[in-house]
C-alpha cells in the first residue's frame, strides 16, 4: 500500500511545502496510505536490510502533564509507566514547544545544533514570522534517516501538519495527517492511531514515531481550563489512553511487544491563562525610541522571541533595553539573553527570550487577536513532562523508577543505543535512559 512516487524525497518536500495532501485515509483502517521512498530500507542501498526483531515505538502524548498519568483517567498509560522504567522527573527543553521538542527527540540534539528552537520564529530572510515546518529547517541528522540508511524501516505517524512538514521524507514510511481539523491543523487521535495500527500491520517499521495531538489540542481550546475543570481535556485523556492501550494490544498480537521498547513522553505540558492575563510586548517596545520599528516578535504562547532588526553594533544595547522593558511588564517571569549558554538556542531564536509566569500568555503583535487561546506552553511552568519506557524487550528495566532528570533530547540516544546505532558526529546532547 505504498504510494510509489517517482522521487518521493523530492515529492515529499513539495508536499510538505505546499501543505498538499497526498492521501486520504478513512478511519477504520482500509485505505490508509503511506508515502515512502521506493522500496523500504533502500535509502542507503549499500546496506542490506537488517534482520533484527527489535522494535522501538516512540509515542508522544502531546501536551500531557506528568500528574495526569495518576489522574485515574489513563489506566493503560499508568500501567505501562509502573511496569517499566519510569522517570518521575522529566522535562521539556526550551523553547517548550512542539516542533523543537520533537526534533530534539529524534536528533538527540539541542536547538543550537538542530536549527529548530521554537514553533514560530522570525525569518530574517523572509522578513516575516513563520512556522518552522519545512524539511530544510531541521539541520540535524535524525534517527529516522540514520536507521533507514542502515537498512532499518522507520515510520512517522504525526498528527500535526507542521510536524509532518518538518520531518519531510526522512522516515521510510510517512503518514500524512488526515482528516485535518481546520484551524487546529491536526488529525484527531482516533485517525492517527488507526494510521499507526495500519503502519504496523502493513510495514512493521523498526522505529515508529507517533504524535497524538488530542490532549494538546483540546487543552489549547479548553475554556474550562483556567478554572481548573479542564472538561474537554479530561475527555481527551481517557480517549487517548484507550487508543494507546489498543495499540499495545496490537503489538502483542502481532508478536512485536516482546522485542520492543516503547518510549512514552510528552513534548511539553500545558498551562491555562485567564483572559485578563495576557502580555503584549509590542506596545511597550514600540514606545522605546531606540526600539521602535526595530523589533520583531515571534509569539510562542508562553514564550516571546524578540529579534533586533537594527544595526548589529547596537545589538547589545538593544538587548539590554528589550530585557528591561519586558521584565517590567506584568506577567513576565524573566527576559533572557538568547545567548545564555544553558538555553542552547541558536540565532534562529532571536536576541531575547521572554517567558511568562504561570497563568499568563503572550499575545503579540496584537494583544487581542494574535493569541486568544487559554491553554499555552513555552514557559517554564510547562516544563515537566511524563517520561517512561515500557515494552517487552529484556533491556527494559521492570518496575523501576530513577530520580535523574530525563529530557526530550534523551529519546534519540536511548533508541539509538537500543539498535546499536553509533552516536552522530559531535555526539548527542541527551543521554540514553536504558
Amino acid at each position, binding site marked *: 500500500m505504498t504510494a510509489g512516487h517517482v522521487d518521493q524525497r523530492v515529492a515529499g518536500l513539495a508536499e510538505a511545502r505546499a501543505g498538499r495532501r497526498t492521501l486520504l485515509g478513512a478511519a477504520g483502517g482500509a485505505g490508509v496510505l503511506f508515502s515512502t521512498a521506493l522500496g523500504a530500507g533502500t535509502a542507503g542501498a549499500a546496506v542490506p536490510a537488517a534482520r533484527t526483531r527489535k522494535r522501538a515505538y516512540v509515542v508522544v502524548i502531546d501536551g500531557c502533564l506528568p500528574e495526569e498519568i495518576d489522574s485515574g483517567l489513563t489506566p493503560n498509560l499508568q500501567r505501562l509507566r509502573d511496569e517499566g522504567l519510569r522517570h518521575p*522527573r522529566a522535562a521539556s527543553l526550551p523553547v517548550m514547544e512542539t516542533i523543537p521538542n520533537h526534533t530534539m527527540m529524534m536528533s538527540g540534539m539541542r536547538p543550537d545544533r538542530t536549527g529548530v528552537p521554537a514553533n514560530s520564529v522570525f525569518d530574517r530572510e523572509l522578513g516575516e514570522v513563520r512556522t518552522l515546518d519545512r524539511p530544510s529547517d531541521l539541520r540535524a541528522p535524525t534517527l529516522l534517516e540514520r536507521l533507514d540508511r542502515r537498512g532499518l524501516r522507520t515510520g512517522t505517524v504525526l498528527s500535526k501538519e507542521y510536524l509532518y512538514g518538518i520531518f519531510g521524507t526522512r522516515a521510510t514510511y510517512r503518514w500524512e495527517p488526515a482528516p485535518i481539523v481546520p484551524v487546529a491543523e491536526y488529525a484527531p487521535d482516533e485517525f492517527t492511531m488507526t494510521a499507526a495500527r495500519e503502519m504496523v500491520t502493513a510495514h512493521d517499521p523498526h522505529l515508529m514515531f507517533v504524535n497524538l495531538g488530542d490532549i494538546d489540542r483540546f487543552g489549547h481550546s479548553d475554556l474550562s481550563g483556567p478554572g481548573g*475543570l479542564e472538561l474537554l481535556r479530561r475527555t481527551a485523556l481517557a480517549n487517548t489512553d484507550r487508543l494507546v492501550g489498543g495499540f499495545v494490544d496490537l503489538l502483542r498480537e502481532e508478536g512485536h511487544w516482546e522485542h520492543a521498547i516503547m518510549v512514552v513522553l510528552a513534548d511539553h505540558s500545558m498551562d491555562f491563562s485567564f483572559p485578563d492575563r495576557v502580555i503584549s510586548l509590542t506596545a511597550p517596545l514600540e514606545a522605546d525610541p531606540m526600539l521602535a520599528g526595530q523589533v520583531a516578535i515571534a509569539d510562542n504562547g508562553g514564550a516571546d522571541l524578540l529579534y533586533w532588526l537594527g544595526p548589529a553594533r547596537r545589538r547589545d544595547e538593544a538587548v539590554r533595553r528589550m530585557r528591561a522593558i519586558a521584565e517590567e511588564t506584568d506577567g513576565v517571569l524573566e527576559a533572557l539573553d538568547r545567548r545564555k549558554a544553558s538555553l542552547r538556542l541558536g540565532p534562529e531564536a532571536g536576541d531575547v527570550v521572554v517567558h511568562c509566569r*504561570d497563568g499568563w500568555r503572550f499575545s503579540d503583535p496584537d494583544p487581542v487577536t494574535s493569541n486568544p487561546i487559554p491553554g499555552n506552553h513555552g514557559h517554564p511552568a510547562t516544563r515537566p513532562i511524563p517520561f517512561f519506557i515500557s515494552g517487552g524487550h529484556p533491556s527494559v528495566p521492570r518496575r523501576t*523508577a530513577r*530520580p535523574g532528570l530525563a529530557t526530550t533530547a534523551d529519546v534519540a540516544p536511548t533508541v539509538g543505543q537500543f539498535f546499536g546505532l553509533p552516536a552522530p558526529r559531535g555526539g548527542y546532547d541527551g543521554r540514553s535512559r536504558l
Partner: protein
Amino acid sequence: MTTPTRRTVLRTGAAGALGTAALAPGVLSPGAVAAPGARADRRTFAHGVASGDPLPRRVVIWTRVTPTPASTPGSGKGPQVTVRWEVARDAAFTRVVRRGNAVTGPSRDHTVKVDVDGLDADRWYHYRFVLDGRRSPVGRLRTAPRARAAVRRLRLGVVSCANWQAGMFAAYRGIAARDDLDAVLCLGDYLYEYAPGEYGYGNGNVDVRPHDPAREMVSLEDYRRRHAQYKTDPDLQAAHARYPWIVTWDDHETTNDAWRNGAENHQPDTEGDFKARRARAHRAYDEWMPVRMDGTARLGDGTRLYRRLTWGKLAEISMLDLRTYRSEQSSDPQAISDPARTITGKRQLAWLLDSLGRRASQWKVVGNPVMIAPVTLGALPTAKAQAVTEVTGLAPDEGVPINVDQWDGYTADRRQVFDHLRDLNIDDALFVTGDIHSAWAAELPFEKGTYPLSGTVGVEFVCSSVTSNNLDDITGGPEGSSAAVEATIKGANPHIKYLDFDRHGFSVLDITPVRAQMDWFVLGDRREADTTITHSASWLTRASSGTVEQAEGPAR
C-alpha cells in the same frame, strides 16, 4: 474515627503489633554501639557522641569530654586537653580510615567538633574519641551519596519539640532502635528554656523531671548546662550515636516566640539585651550540636544555620532558620500580609527560591521549623479555640483565627514561595515541619480560596512532638478526645487531609523516586522511658502529584 486512647495503648502494651513490627530486630540497649573489647568511659564522655550534616566526603562528629570532676558543663573549669578521634570502617576499629587530634578546653565548654573529610561517599563508618586512653562510646555515621548518584531511597527519622520536663525521650529510643534510617531530621525545639514549674507535663503542668539549671536559661552557662542535661538522656544519646543528625532550631533553643529583635519570653529589663542573649544561645548550640554553622564546624565564625544537603539525584534538603531574621509576630490582618514583614529574611528567601528551583535533585525537601500550609480554625467553640491556640500558636484574629507564629503570619513571603513553585512548575516540593506538637498531612494550595481547582504547589508533612504538650494535654481529655476539633479544622481546611492533635512520638520519612511517605509512630505514656511505641498513620505523596493520600501501612 476510632482512635485508641492512651489507656488502650497501654493495655495492648507490646502487642502494639504495628509498631513492634516496624522496629528493626536487634534493639539496642541505650547508648551507642558497643565496640568489642573496649569499654566506654562514661564519666569522661558523659554526654555521648554525635554526628551530623552528612556530605559525600565529610561528616561532622561531636563529643564533650569531662577531663576532671570539676569540669562540669558551663563551669568554665578544667584544663585544655587534646582528644584523639578515629573513624573506621568497622566497629572494632581494625580498619581506621581517618584519625586526628582536636584541642578543647573551658573556652568551648570542653566540646569537640570535627568536620571529618576524605571519606567515601554513601558509606557507613564508626567513630570514637579517646582522651588519655579513655574511650568514648562508639557512634555510627554515614556519608551522603555523590551528588550525581541515582539514589533509590532515602529514609529519615523526623523529630521535634522535646521538652525534658514534659516526659521521657522514648521517641528517641524508637529512632535508635531502628536499623533502616539514613539520618535524623530535627526540626527544632531540641531543648526548652523554661525553669522548673514553668512548662511541664499536661494541664497540671507537672515536671516529669526538672530542668537544670533550675531557672530559665539566659546566661551562656545556663545554655551550656541545659544542652548538657539533655545530652545525658540515654535515649537521646543512643539516637545521636546511631545516626547522623541534620538539625535546625526553632524558638526554644533561644526562647519562646523569638524574632529578629526580641521574643515573647524575653524581658530586657531583667534579662538584658536580646541579641546578646541570642548570641549566647547560638554559641552554646554551635558548641553542643553536630552541625555546620556558616558552612563550617568551627566555632565563632558565623551562625548561619540555613543550608542545603544533597542526597544524590533523589533529594535535596534545605534546612531553614525561621527565627533569626523574622519580623515580630502580629495578628493584625493588615500586618500579616505586609510585604515589608518577613519570616525568612530577604537573603534566606532568595536562597530558598534558588534551592527550590535547582534541578540537580528530584525531591525538594524543606526542613521547615514552622508550618507553611494555611490554616483557619473554622467555627470552634471558644474554649476549644483557646486550647488550640495555646498548643499550636494559632491565634484568633477578629473571629477569623489564623496561625500567626507560622507562615500564616507572614503571607507575603509565602506568596513568593508559592508563586515561584508555580511559575517554574517545580514538582515534588516537600515541606517537613515541626513546632506545633501535632501530626499533619496537607497539600499546599496555590490559592486556599479556590482549592482544589486552582491546584497545589507541594505538600507538607508535620511531625508531632517528642514530649511537648498538645491538645488533649491542655484540655485534660484523654488521647483521641480532640477528634471533633480535628474534624472541624479539616472541614474548614479541605487541603488538610490528616491531623492528630493528641499523640507524641516521631516520624519516618521514606523517599523514593516514585513517592515520599511519612509514617507517624506514637508513644503510650511519655512519662515512661520504656513506654510502647506504635504505628499510628502513614500518608504519602506521589511524584509530580502535589497531593497526599493515605498509605496502606508503614514503609517497608
